[in-house]
């Protein structure tokens, strides 16, 4: 158990717990803030997993852009307290939650015993000749970004372009959705 492992576990546990905290918040702003911290923790975990670029992107894009939009909308709506009913949890839901916790715990013990790595070897991901593994140093210093780029723009170029279409569609779509109403208002007035 070295320092890296320790901090990873701490971050992971914190992230899970904070996620739990998030879903139980009453105020959306609080929830958003907790979520941002979860994301920041995840960014740290990415960093520990040597995915530096992913870590930084996690913060810049997720925490720095997407969540800002969330917060922006939350603030814009500025919901009155009576809008924020907090529906109770039914018995069935509680049973479900309990089952989830139980499974998670049992699985945790299994993971602790190294069950997961055995299972992964059985799946043969690393040995398969059909895997898309690239046999080159991936996680050395200053290599991460280059490798991500190389993979993304060679193997996944097509998907990348498709995603860009998706983003354009989403942009146009959200503008249209948001604007329709105001145009109607303008007409009415």
């Amino acid at each position, binding site marked *: 158990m070295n320092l890296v492992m320790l901090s990873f576990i701490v971050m992971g546990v914190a992230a899970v717990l904070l996620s739990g905290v998030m879903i139980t918040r009453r105020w959306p702003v609080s929830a958003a803030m907790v979520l941002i911290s979860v994301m920041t923790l995840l960014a740290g975990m990415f960093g520990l997993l040597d995915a530096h670029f992913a870590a930084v992107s996690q913060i810049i894009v997720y925490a720095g852009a997407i969540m800002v939009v969330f917060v922006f909308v939350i603030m814009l709506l500025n919901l009155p307290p009576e809008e924020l009913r907090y529906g109770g949890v039914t018995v069935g839901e509680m049973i479900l939650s309990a089952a989830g916790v139980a*499974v998670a715990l*049992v*699985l945790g013990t299994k993971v602790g015993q190294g069950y997961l790595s055995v299972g992964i070897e059985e799946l043969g991901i690393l040995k398969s000749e059909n895997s898309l593994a690239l046999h080159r140093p991936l996680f050395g210093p200053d290599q991460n970004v280059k490798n991500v780029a190389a993979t993304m723009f060679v193997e996944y170029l097509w998907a990348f372009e498709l995603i860009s279409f998706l983003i354009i569609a989403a942009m146009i779509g959200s503008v249209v959705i948001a604007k329709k109403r105001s145009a109607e208002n303008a007409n009415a007035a």
Partner: protein
Amino acid sequence: MNYQAMLAAVLLIPLLGALLNGFFLRRAPRLVTVTVGTLAIAVPFVLSCLLVFGPVSAGEVIRTELFSWISVPFNEGRLEVPFGLSVDRLSGILLLIITGVGSLIHLYAGEYMSHEEGVYRFFAYLNLFVFSMLSLVLGSNMVVTFLGWEGVGVCSYLLIGYWYSDEANARAGMKAFVANRVGDLGFLLAMFMSVKLFGTLDYSRIAEALTNELAAANAPLLTAIGLCLLLGVTGKSAQLPLYIWLPDAMAGPTPVSALIHAATMVTSGIYLMTRMSFLLVHSPAAMTTIAVIGACTALFAATIGLVQNDIKKVLAYSTVSQLGFMVLGCGVGAFQFGVAHLMTHAFFKALLFLGAGSVIHAMHHEQDIRKMGGLIKKMPITGWTFVIGTLAIIGFPGLSGFFSKDEILYYAWSGTFGHPLLWVLGALAAACTSFYMVRLTYLVFFGESRVEHAHHHHDHGHGHDHHHHEIHENPLAMTLPLMILAVFSIIGGYVSMPHAIMHMLGIHAGENLITQWLAPVLEKAKVVMTAAHGEAHGSAALEWGLMGTSTLVMLIMSGFAIALYKAGPKGGESIAKAVGGLYRLILDKWRVDELYQAVIIEPLKKVGDGFFKFGDRALIEGIINEGPRGIYLVTSVLSDIQSGLVRNYLKVVFVGILALCVWIFI
């Protein structure tokens, strides 16, 4: 100009005429249309004469291939079907008849159709018909022949329905086409079998390939080919059981009846059988069937002809009957006399139709012979040529029909596949022919005039623009063809002069002209027949006897007809009353049309409706539409589980994830 090019020109010039008239001369003056139409046939006629009396008469067979039409790998080799033309002595005769009689009829039609609008259409159809007919007889293989075979069917369809505004005409055209199609199926099947047996469709190749050994080994198949060909012939040449279209086909303009339904198209069956004679004679069963069909048709159609009152209908049944004679001739192995009768029939039947057309034209489209009479005074040329035609068809000694018909009857008795019974049937048919033809001629041209004058005024209402109401002789353009055809009706038969007469006249050429002319074509058939059945077993005495008998019968029946109808059409009523129901039955053409309608058409329609209602609608659509309804019942239960709330779906997902974890890891 070499002969190959001439041959191609003979075929293509009518097509050119058809295209010119059909597309480019639509607005041209009538004179141009008629001239182009007629020249498109007359020029090939001249070329044909050059061909036939030149190299063909010298025994050459001229061949040419325009282009490769179908070419497919077949078994180990290839199945090649070129668009090939060939002219030998058999097709030479047909060529001359088609173009010669065709030119005359075109000339005649130019005048006959002078009151019609848009006559370019008529001439385009006619030229197209001649093109088809020529490709039928000139084709060097069965597929090219089939092109003509179906082509003439289409042209006949179009021409019968030329006055399409009356639905009956269009229906008649359709009937003709469909009946022909039934026959065409026979031709098609014969082709398939030929492909299977010989691997080729070229007549000369088939003839080469058909050795006696092959024939012996494939006797059933040859019989099948023969019968399929016969089916084709019954369709095209209007034999039992497919003859029904021909009487209805009289709905077309009269020149069409003369050209298509008397001289050319309907005789193509005889051509085909003669062309395939070398194959047919291998199968006695097929030959006998052909002969019986021919004889029965001859008699059957003649009986209907006895009582018809429409001038064209009488001629139509007479045509069917005469075609029966030709088929009979082929069926008994006397192919050359079938062809001879084809030729003489082309002359006198064209003459009769044109004469009838002349009458109809003069009578302003009146066709009922009960309303005619005494016309010979007003239309002498038409009248006397019509009389010549009648004498020719009834076999008046010395005229063309006498020679050709008597030769057929003689061979029906004594030919290779002949039988006295066949002769009896033929003779009875000839007797009927004499009766109804004389009846027709007498009622139309002699006796009292029964023309209704009121009818003329009525006719004005139709918009026909006549300057005077008198019935009068038609112009030269119509009478000239009549005169020419009359000449040929008289002399045309001498090519098939019976042996007995030849002996009497002291001609010792051995065989008569037509036998000599067609000898190369029929050589193989003759060899086969001789080998299998020996020489024909006739004698001069028999020939004289039969000839005398039929002449006697002809004279008696003619006299009987004149006596019966001297006082007008009412003369026959006493006999009609005497036989009563039979008369009605014959007047209704033995109700064959109704029989077909009830036995074939209506059941097929029922089947079609049944397929649609029970097959498509009830069964298949039922499964398609009701099957989902069953699923719908099940799913409507399931869909209640679908609350539409994401949260509930996620619960299922959640349980699923947990289950998956338990299953995999625990």
